[in-house]
């Protein structure tokens, strides 16, 4: 399978952008929270779930999507949002709780909603799956070729909504692709202690749909299986299920003492870093170092600009909390 150069470039640059973004948030989030961790302090209070290491899951499929395609994401949503093309400045402002944010600063990092890219996410496990199926059904009923992609974690595959959605989507041949990011842990519980099958792609058989497995956080393999799944959905042939083995470099949330995994685990994972592997692939393909450096610089500049925009923006007025409960009135 040959991959168009512009796809490789986009995936590389987007992965760098995601990684830079998440690492910047590690620092910004930590401001004011130590020496004794106080989750309510600093410029970004509350929980923070970061996705450094999980970039291949997002870019490998979003490269095949159009703005009209729907994406739903879970509580760890930044890589999906960036890969779907959500405005980075307004996304960052939302994370900072500022009035210029995607949700006027009233949602925070787990509640990013962007009509322009048809992106949404939320903190309840597997809750986005039926929404994606509904988007897929709406696309089909309106005669569009738009697809929907639902990202979930491996822990979410044990929720009722997962199974209900897959049955509906298979029954109605919906243009839906479900991507399971297996980052080994549902917070602290390893997959082997929560899931009756070793690999969740096996569960596709229960609904008579294709199931794919991507081992070892391989972005090129993710690209390949995602293209098959998205094209199949676009052709109207129904849903697919993809599980990708991915890496979570950071804790479940920032401040997580990570008592549930060995200290050597993350350094071991970082040795197989997917961004470095893609970089080596590009070098082997003859891409020049200075070209890649230029892409990296562009990604970092976008992140810098987004954080500056967020920091410089204003908080919403307190009375704004009373707005938007209903369409036409305040409570």
């Amino acid at each position, binding site marked *: 399978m040959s991959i168009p150069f512009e796809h490789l470039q986009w995936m590389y640059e987007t992965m760098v952008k995601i990684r830079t973004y998440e690492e910047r948030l590690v620092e910004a989030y930590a401001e004011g929270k130590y020496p004794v961790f106080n989750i309510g302090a600093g410029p970004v209070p509350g929980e923070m779930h970061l996705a450094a290491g999980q970039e291949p899951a997002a870019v490998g499929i979003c490269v095949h999507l159009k703005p009209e395609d729907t994406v739903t994401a879970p509580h760890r949503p930044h890589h999906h949002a960036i890969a779907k093309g959500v405005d980075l400045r307004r996304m960052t402002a939302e994370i900072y709780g500022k009035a210029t944010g995607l949700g006027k600063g*009233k949602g925070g990092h787990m509640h990013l909603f962007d009509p322009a890219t048809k992106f949404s996410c939320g903190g309840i496990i597997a809750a986005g799956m039926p929404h994606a199926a509904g988007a897929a059904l709406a696309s089909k009923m309106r005669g569009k070729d738009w697809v929907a992609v639902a990202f979930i974690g491996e822990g979410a595959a044990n929720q009722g909504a997962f199974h209900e959605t897959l049955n509906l989507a298979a029954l109605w041949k919906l243009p839906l692709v479900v991507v399971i990011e297996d980052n080994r842990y549902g917070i*602290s*519980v390893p997959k082997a202690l929560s899931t009756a099958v070793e690999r969740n792609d096996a569960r596709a058989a229960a609904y008579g749909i294709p199931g794919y497995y991507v081992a070892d956080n391989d972005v090129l393999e993710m690209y390949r299986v995602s293209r098959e799944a998205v094209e199949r959905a676009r052709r109207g042939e129904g849903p697919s299920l993809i599980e990708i083995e991915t890496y979570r470099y950071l804790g479940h949330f920032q401040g997580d003492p990570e008592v*549930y995994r060995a200290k050597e685990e993350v350094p071991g994972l970082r040795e197989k870093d997917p961004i470095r592997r893609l970089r080596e692939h590009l070098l082997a393909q003859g891409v020049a170092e200075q070209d890649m450096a230029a892409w990296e610089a562009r990604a970092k500049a976008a992140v810098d600009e987004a954080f500056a925009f967020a920091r410089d923006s204003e908080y919403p007025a307190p009375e704004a909390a*009373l707005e938007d409960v209903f369409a036409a009135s305040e409570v």
Partner: protein
Amino acid sequence: MSRELTMLQAIQEALDLKLADDERVVLLGEDIGVNGGVFRATDGLLAKYGEKRVIDTPLAESGIIGTAIGMALNGMVPVAEIQFLAFIFPGLEQLLSHAARMRHRTRGQFGVPMVIRTPYGAGIRGPELHSESVEAFFAHTPGLKVVVPSSPYDAKGLLISAIEDPDPVVFLEPTRIYRAFREEVPGGLYRVPLGQAKVVREGEDLSIFAWGSMLRTALRAAEQIEQERGWRCEVIDLRTLYPLDRETIITSVQKTGRALVVHEAHKTAGLGAEIISLINDEALLYLRAPVKRIAGFDVPVPMFSVEDDYLPTEARIRQGIEETILF
């Protein structure tokens, strides 16, 4: 033996003691094992009692509550943890349609002795779905008891009573005061009975009814208003929201002739409405002013920048006291 413990430590001790005391008691929930729960309420219990007594479950709230019902019907006493109150919503079908109704549905042949423990409430900069106060959902459902401690001592004694209760108990743990303060807590098993409110501060001019994290806010407002205006407010911690301690509520209102309910839940159809209705039924002619509610607003709990504006504050409570007394 008596030491100063946080509410979280008191809860952990109650679980520890009941696991040791009654082999039918089993804990189950998400991340309660190795991780000791996301707030660490079950810290160390897996190591002490093993994975048959302290069970890490898949992420499946309907499955957790439904399985607990089956265990309770078959000789076990499950204590399930739901990681945050709003995570219970996927499991409400099992709780409201089955756990609550089983005794009535089987005409008394089967009870469901189980406890659902769950962190709840705002004030820790959790976003929506990590900060809800939907206690009224449960109090509205026949067959469920609803308990909310406001102190370490009560948390331990109420949780032990809840685990020993023959019926399902929803035990709501206010996250804002999990570690906010310590107080003396006796070692060993002791019980605080369900269904009994507690007069935390005596007064003659107005009765304030509160629970959970709002109790301390209400107490501070009562102290401030006494200093400023000389009015003495009685503050009552309801502790159990179903069944309500009607007698303590009515006795206090008969004494003071004025009342105020403080809750962080949304105002409309919150428990404040139920308490006011009870006062109307039983003590109307004692009232010298309408009973007020100081409550959260009718919006989803907002983000951190305005979270403190959502929650009832001492200032809002003081204003409510003034309006009631000067009515």
